[in-house]
């Protein structure tokens, strides 16, 4: 479904991505972790077709990305700037659904349902600037999920919410993605999270980013916040990813690309 091959990107003379290759099969959820400023958001923007990378290739469903791909949804890291301040939360969520050919009532219903799922049933008629940071972030998650894209890109989508909400949202994303077979690329700083939600975890090196490791998670499809996190495999993988992010080298089966 998604094939990133040898992606290179430089801002001016400053090389940020230095040959990154990542593959995601249909319906797979790939987590990307890496140090701050290493180039994760740049990677995501290249996949979304928002920037034209300096080198390498991105294929989605076999098609090269030369404009914004169809059926794509993105949750931006800077979520507050991606909501429209002149619209209520419900309208922000409902707006993209016009493309889905839904009539006004159905759009409204879908939006309300999505907001409900992220715990914002009460806030449907609030404007973004009347909401807390975490609420805004959840609105943009609800917008992406309600859209039912075939490719979902999320840049630290749970950074501004409390632990409980975060877990709920993780489970929500797992459920929705599995149910609709969305292919998902999720950038996160939380190593636990990457292992918990990912089918695979890709670790990037410090800038310029290369793939330090590409680890299959292999925890099965049904995950549970308490049971899964207590599995031995989970704990081991978490430690492994942690070490890799800290710059150590991999000890387990790693599909090193470079």
């Amino acid at each position, binding site marked *: 479904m998604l094939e990133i091959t040898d992606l290179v990107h430089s801002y001016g003379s400053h090389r940020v991505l230095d040959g990154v290759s990542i593959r995601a099969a249909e319906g797979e959820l790939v987590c990307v972790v890496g140090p701050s400023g290493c180039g994760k958001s740049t990677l995501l923007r290249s996949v979304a077709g928002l920037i034209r990378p300096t080198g390498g290739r991105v294929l989605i469903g076999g098609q090269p990305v030369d404009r914004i791909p169809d059926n*794509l949804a*993105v949750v931006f890291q800077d979520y507050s700037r991606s909501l*429209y301040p002149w619209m209520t939360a419900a309208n922000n969520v409902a707006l993209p659904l016009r493309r889905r050919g839904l009539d006004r009532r159905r759009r409204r219903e879908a939006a309300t349902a999505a907001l409900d799922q992220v715990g914002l049933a009460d806030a449907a008629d609030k404007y973004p600037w009347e909401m807390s940071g975490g609420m805004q972030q959840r609105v943009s998650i609800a917008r992406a999920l309600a859209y039912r894209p075939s490719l979902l890109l999320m840049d630290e989508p749970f950074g501004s919410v409390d632990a409980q909400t975060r877990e709920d949202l993780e489970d929500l994303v797992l459920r929705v993605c599995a149910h609709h077979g969305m292919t998902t690329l999720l950038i996160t700083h939380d190593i636990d999270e990457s292992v918990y939600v990912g089918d695979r975890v890709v670790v990037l090196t410090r800038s310029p980013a290369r793939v330090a490791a590409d680890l299959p998670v292999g925890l099965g499809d049904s995950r549970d916040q308490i049971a899964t996190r207590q599995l031995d495999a989970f704990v081991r993988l978490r430690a492994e990813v942690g070490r890799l992010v800290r710059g150590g080298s991999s000890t387990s089966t790693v599909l090193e690309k470079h």
Partner: protein
Amino acid sequence: MNVIRAVGRLWLVPVTLVVWEVATRAAEQPFFPPPSATLARMGEMWLSGPPAHLLLTEQAMDDFGPSLARLFAGWALAAVLGVAAGIAIGCSPRLSGYLDPLIHLGRAVPPPLLVPFFLALLKLSTPAQLTTIVFGIIWPILLNTIDGTRTVDRQHLETARIFGFSTAQRLTRVIVPAAMPKIFAGLRLALSLALILLIIAEILAGSGGLGYRLLTAQRTYLYTDMWGCLVVLGLLGYLLNSAFLLMERRVLAWHRNARQTT
């Protein structure tokens, strides 16, 4: 409470009037009649009519009726054209490349010089006057709209592109609302300019209306009449602007609230 607020808002008016009255009485310059004389003359000219016509005299109807109609038509036309063209140019760097120099060429040519040619071109006086007004006031609307359109927050645009908004959606849901505060600044500027251009158009097309009255007053050295016209212009400007601000408060409510500091 409302009275207090109104007083708070309008206190400068009587103060200015009194200062002006005292100053003009002291100066005894025929060109600067005291405001009391001007107001008296205005009443005589425009407000001594039958009660059935709200006291408006026949002359008032002649002076204001067609003028106001031209003013609104001109402003509305300029708003539609300016906003539409501004959005098109703001969205398309290519189009702006072609048109930019022409725009700046056009807006630096004095409209009074062009009126005779509009007249020659359009033969009829009303379309020529409307053209004059539109040509004179469209620039702030156009430039502010271009600026507003070009400077929509990048992430707003990216979000629209990601979700594959149609062009119409992108315009009506993202670009126009985002540019609206700036467009309104342009529309507000254009509203007062429209009054100015109306006067110029009426003077040059030479037939009836407030501008024509102003011209005759100047030509016959009837300075109180002339000041009366200026006062009416000012009052009209104030009223139009107040109405405009009311509309703006409704349309831009989100903006005011989103941008308020505590």
